[in-house]
């Protein structure tokens, strides 16, 4: 059994060993192994030139990763809170168009790992709820893994991919454990995965919302109501085929997001389903998000962040509407 952090650290070690153009840039990734211990021990194996500590500073961390990528390295920006690098956003937006501008002669194979998520008294800046900033930029692929296995497989594929890839990794999942086999474990981009089959409705979730969806679906199944659960996994591009086919089958879609509702990935998904599957929908699309009232105090947090129980009750009501 490996935790999310252990599984993704294994991914880093494997890819660093496989290709010496791979480097890790990050804050505090020296002997302490990073804020989330995501690089623990790697400096002993690969040295401080490849496991390179940067001071805090949005521009130079992001800018240097882009420059290094343009000059032939394959940089990974280690797990970092989004507010620590969001000042480098304009850099990334520009870099994301490089492949197209250079007609493929230049690529920016950066993997950017962002620690996001609510809970534990994280206020909005720390929660890093900027999901749609990344998904609305052309040329960036965005993934929100929900398990250690998917985390490992996606990270490995991201490092090998020539495209700029952002991993939105939820802090709430870092300690979750899963058996990870010895297979090469490379996961494709842009594919959703059906986790539970059902016929009553399709529940789409990603990242930290996946365990909520699975928990609620389980309780519903015990009461004889079988809903399909799909892990969207890739937020850009969106796997509309898998979601659409499920929608055609069930006629109802409910979206659970681990983030705020406004101009969100869920909003986009609803728009696309409306364009492509309108005739197959038997009811308005349902949704559940982190509430805008989310704030520091434990009571404000508890009421604003979805849970298995809260989702179960919402789904139950929505199914009988």
């Amino acid at each position: 059994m490996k935790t999310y952090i252990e599984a993704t650290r294994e991914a880093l070690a494997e890819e660093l060993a496989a290709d010496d153009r791979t480097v890790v840039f990050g804050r505090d990734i020296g002997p302490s192994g990073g804020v989330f211990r995501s690089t623990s021990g790697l400096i002993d194996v690969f040295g401080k030139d490849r496991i390179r500590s940067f001071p805090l500073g949005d521009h130079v961390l992001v800018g240097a990763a882009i420059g290094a990528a343009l000059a032939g390295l394959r940089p990974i920006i280690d797990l970092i809170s989004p507010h620590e690098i969001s000042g480098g956003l304009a850099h990334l937006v520009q870099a994301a168009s490089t492949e197209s501008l250079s007609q493929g002669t230049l690529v920016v194979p950066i993997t950017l790992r962002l620690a996001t998520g609510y809970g534990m008294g994280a206020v909005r800046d720390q929660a890093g709820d900027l999901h749609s900033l990344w998904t609305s930029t052309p040329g960036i692929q965005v993934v929100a893994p929900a398990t250690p296995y998917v985390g490992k497989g996606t990270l490995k594929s991201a490092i090998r991919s020539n495209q700029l890839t952002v991993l939105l990794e939820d802090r709430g999942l870092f300690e979750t454990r899963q058996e990870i086999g010895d297979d090469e474990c490379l996961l494709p981009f842009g594919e959703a995965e059906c986790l539970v089959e059902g016929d009553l409705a399709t529940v789409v979730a990603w990242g930290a919302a996946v365990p909520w969806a699975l928990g609620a679906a389980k309780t519903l199944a015990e009461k004889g109501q079988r809903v399909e659960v799909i892990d969207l996994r890739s937020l850009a591009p969106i796997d509309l085929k898998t979601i659409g086919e499920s929608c055609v089958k069930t006629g109802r879609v409910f979206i659970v997001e681990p983030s705020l509702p406004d101009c969100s990935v869920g909003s986009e998904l609803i728009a696309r389903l409306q364009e492509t599957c309108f005739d197959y929908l038997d009811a308005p699309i349902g949704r559940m998000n982190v509430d805008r009232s989310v704030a520091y105090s434990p009571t404000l947090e508890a009421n604003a962040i979805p849970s298995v129980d809260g989702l179960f009750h919402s789904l139950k009501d929505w199914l009988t509407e």
Partner: protein
Amino acid sequence: MAKSGRLVLLADTLLALYRNMARIRAVEKRLVQSFQEGLISGDCHSSMGQEGVATGICQHLRANDLLFSPHRGHGHAIGKGMPLTQLFGELYGRVTGCCQGKGGGRNLLSQEIGLLGSSGLLGATITEAVGAGIAIQLERSDRVVVAFFGDGAALHGRFHEGINLAAHWKLPIIFVCENNLYADQTKFEDLTAQSRVSLRGRAYGLHGIDVDGNDVTAVYEEAYEAVRIARVGDGPSLIECRTYRARPFVEGLEEKPARPLSERDEWLGNDPIVKFASKLLDADHASAAEVAAVEKEVVQEVLQAHRDAVEAPFPNSNSAETAAAE
């Protein structure tokens, strides 16, 4: 009276400095315990060990002067006059907090006392102080702005962008770098070839000053001059205060690798409060009874604020904010 080159410090001033440092210390001690008891749900960045800086600077500020503080801001808020009940209320997530429990310790702010933000976004205190300085310059008043930040933030682009313009426009700002030698687990010297922040200030045309941050009267004297210069429109200063945090980077963190024992011993043996107390006694500025009375007084204050916060209600979630956003 203590005599120094420029300033004559009256016994009252000295005791006020002592009281403020002791108050911050008592708060930080209580918060360490509260964190362990689960009363604080988010990050708690203690300023224990750095009381001399917040105190020596803030003592010069008037009620309508402005202040920007970073994540490690309890002492700054206290120095600027935040009632302790508001501070404890905020950290415990209660309605009595300065932000009604919505922000926690990394987000202390209060329009009333001129604390315009304590921000988790590093370097933001520096750039935002520039804007507040512009506002004061336009109103042609003699108010000043103080921006606190750490050694880590001094390596951020916002530092360079901010102090350059502050110097160019002669803004009424006192930039205070609390150089506690580390940014999280990384030693300042390990990521820069120029470890004197004050020299960077001079390179941009600011008054760049070095001072022992654990010597409250030294900080007080430098701040006196910097505030005076800012009030008369002669531009910003950058005061680099060398100090050391007595607690881990954030409560609950096991620091790995730990800071070297010899370094810790040396700095903690140089405790700003212990040092100042013996200075007061040695020079007969205060009696042992007076010092003990201050200690007792602040501990009482803190206990009361803690109790008030524990008894205060949590906010309920149907807040005006949600309604407004709908």
